[in-house]
């Protein structure tokens, strides 16, 4: 099958460009000064997606598991970097995020493959891994940002706890609980209302691709539980790794942004 056969829908893509022109028009008319950003976003998304399309076409044919792992690692690194920027102010934010996302992904994908829900094949693992990593990234960024804010605003209480003989972990026990809660609530909420407000991405994609609604629903349920698990695990790992950088070896508060 020639690779280019996947692009026979290009005229339709170009037709969709009308919508971008409408958006840019609105931005220009309302003077929100975002035309440039819309232009950049449009071109970037086009280039990125076409490029990833070609890469996936090539990658889906490989059977080398090392190659799949390598791709997952690249995705994790980029996700860790992005989430880390969200949590700027947390010491070693990018490293923490990278490790936490990797852990969440490893556990979730490992379980699903181990339980034979998915086979370890590029065409399954890479898009699924992408979803897991992307979701973990969002949660992780949220957790890091909230952690930084909690520690900043409750520094006096934290030092009061340390002054009473608490270890760093004990001194931020309440803070970590709140951070985890706020990091997980969005995922839990969207899992609760799924299908009522909007059809989730996997289902929409499968239905657009011609699958029956019931087949799409089955896959979607697996995906939802998987994302919930990955979010929970990554959030926990982020919180438990993230707070450490705020404390010195002698249990002093350090590196708190002003």
């Amino acid at each position: 099958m020639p690779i280019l056969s996947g692009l026979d829908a290009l005229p339709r893509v170009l037709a969709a460009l009308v919508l971008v022109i409408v958006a840019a028009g609105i931005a220009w008319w309302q003077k929100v000064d975002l035309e440039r950003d819309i232009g950049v976003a449009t071109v970037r998304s086009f280039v990125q997606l076409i490029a990833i399309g070609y890469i996936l076409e090539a990658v889906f044919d490989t059977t080398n598991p090392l190659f799949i792992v390598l791709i997952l690692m690249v995705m994790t690194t980029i996700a860790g970097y992005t989430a880390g920027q969200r949590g700027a102010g947390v010491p070693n934010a990018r490293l923490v995020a990278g490790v936490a996302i990797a852990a969440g992904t490893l556990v979730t994908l490992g379980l699903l493959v181990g339980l034979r829900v998915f086979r370890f094949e590029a065409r399954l693992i890479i898009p699924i891994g992408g979803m897991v990593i992307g979701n973990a990234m969002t949660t992780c960024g949220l957790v890091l940002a909230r952690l930084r804010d909690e520690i900043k605003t409750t520094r006096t209480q934290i030092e009061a706890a340390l002054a009473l003989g608490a270890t760093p972990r004990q001194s931020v026990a309440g803070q970590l609980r709140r951070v985890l809660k706020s990091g997980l609530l969005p995922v839990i909420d969207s899992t609760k209302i799924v299908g009522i407000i909007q059809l989730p991405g996997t289902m929409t994609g499968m239905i657009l691709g011609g699958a029956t609604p019931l087949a799409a629903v089955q896959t979607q349920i697996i995906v939802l539980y998987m994302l919930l698990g990955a979010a929970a695990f990554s959030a926990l790992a982020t919180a438990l790794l993230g707070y450490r950088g705020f404390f010195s070896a002698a249990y002093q508060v350090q590196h708190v942004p002003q």
Partner: protein
Amino acid sequence: MLDVRHLTYTTVDGTTLLKDISFQVAPKAIVTLMGPSGSGKSTLLRTLNRLNEPAPGTVWLKERDITTIPVVELRRAVGMVFQSAALFDGTVADNVRYGPALLKQRLSDAECVALLAQVGLPAELLERNIGLVSGGQAQRVAFARALANQPSVLLLDEPTSALDPAATLMIEQLVRDLRDRLGLTFVWVTHNVAQARRVSDRTLLLVNGIVADWGDTGHLLDDTHHDLVQRFALGEDVSQLPVQPGGPHANP
């Protein structure tokens, strides 16, 4: 009890906040640290329980270099009360139980009530949420919370600066009382000269991170040789004046 020897403290970004500080705190003494805002009083106090890191060999507790004492043990022996009471969310009882709970000991209601009584608070406050206690009561709860660890030294960082005169006098009475009844030792940061005169045996005047004077409180405030202390007492901005490190009687 506490012995500070040539303590110099420099922050991570290289600012020297304390320079060559030396003084001693005898058992059961109340020592006040005075000085203009920004002179380093809080910084100094926080090195005494290692919330700020002192250099090894510069701060000694009962003849032990505090950097060689396990930090949790040190902080249980040297408690601290902050300017804002810094209470934890929850009830008064939650706060009083916090220190022992870190060691998996649960204080009974009777033990909590006894601690509240020590700081002059009634038993019915026990289950009250900390959002519903007054500023003066909150500061007493902070004292009770610190006392629950059975410390031998308490560090006080302007514990009365947010209180009205009546509540302030009650805290002063409480501290003298704790010293007399429990034999506690106090290091008390205050910018209030009258308060230092009322409560302390000895006073250290800190100016720009330097010991500008150190000695018997009454003597410092009354003897005319202690010019800087008296000008500080009169409200002058002494941070602009030249300082003789160690005070007027120090040998250079």
